[in-house]
């Protein structure tokens, strides 16, 4: 890999505070979030370059600036009704739409987004 590419990406890693999470895990998280039969988050959210996103929820970007920590983000995905009983967002963890490991991967992925 070209050294000029490594330097900015290292900078990026350090400012999003997610050093040490392998690319592959982020990819898996992204796949779970995009897959219609898994998270299908694109049904409601714009995420990066995901195709044909809905607009029921807010665009998912700059996540670390919107949540205290990963645990709080995880709770939003586990059961959004805890924060807003009227929410349209399905309780992915509580209703076993995604398992704990899958949710953790999605959390890592979202946390990595600009």
């Amino acid at each position, binding site marked *: 890999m070209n050294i000029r590419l490594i330097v900015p990406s290292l900078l990026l890693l350090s400012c999003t505070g997610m050093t040490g999470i392998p690319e592959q895990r982020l990819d898996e998280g992204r796949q779970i979030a995009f897959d219609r039969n898994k998270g299908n988050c*694109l*049904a*409601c959210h714009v995420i990066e370059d995901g195709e*044909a*996103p*809905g*607009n*029921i929820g807010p665009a998912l970007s700059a996540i670390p600036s919107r949540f205290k920590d990963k645990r709080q983000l995880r709770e939003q995905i586990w059961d959004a*009704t805890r924060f807003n009983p*009227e929410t*349209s967002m*399905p*309780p992915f963890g509580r*209703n*076993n*739409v995604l398992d704990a490991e899958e949710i953790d991967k999605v959390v890592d992925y979202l946390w990595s987004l600009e």
Partner: protein
Amino acid sequence: MAAKTLNSILSSSALLLGGLLWLLPAAPAHADPLQDQQDFRQHYRQLFPELTLPDYAEGVYAIDPIARQSWQAIEEFPPYEAAIEQGEALFNTPFKNGRRYADCLPDKGIAIAHEYPRWDRAKGEVITLARAVNDCRVDNREAPLPYEKGDMASLLAYLAFTSRGKPITITIPADDPRALAAYQKGKDFYYQRRGQLNFACATCHVQNAGRQLRSEILSPSLGHTSHWPTYRLKWGEMGTLHRRFRECLAQIKARPIPAQSPEFRNLEYFLSFMSNGIPTNGPGTRK
């Protein structure tokens, strides 16, 4: 209170029904269909101030100009035409005992579709037009038809066609509290969250109407009962309203409920009452 209710009846009937119906019930506070109807419409007026009540008969095409164009192109050679013809032929074919559908149904079945579902006092339940058709068959010793497509859809297509342009006219008789209870059950069903995805029908069609789920714009539920049965491109054939109900339930991974179950008939009663005054335009086409 009485004056207010009366007022709302007057304005509702003058504006929407051309004057009739909805006999005044001694309604408990939790079940006031006319108030529900007003709130329901107010919600959509806020979301879609440019729409008039009859526009809602066009479903999502009233609010999605791009999909509307292809819809109008399809309607020039409507794919439901064959079903209307088949339905008419079926309707006029006598049963083995020599009697006909026309002998069972009010006004010989012609131009009555917009008055269904209705409350049946003797049976003590909501009777949809599909159910009335099958009741007629069974009373005449014919096997009931499956409810989601095929001959039933054709018969309903013909019957709907004879009601075209007539305003949906649903009554909840005041002198039988079971009718109001059935309405209330249908309403509760609509707002009850269910399924693995924890959606209510209202989550998508009330709360998020006009928003996009993936690339699909969500239609308002006002007018949802106006255009059935429908030729759906996705089905490649005609299907009934309850087939669509079942599909939306499956979408949210909820326990399946069969067509013409009491739950779905009560649901249709509620939704149709909300749509009172909207001209029927069945049979329809949808993507």
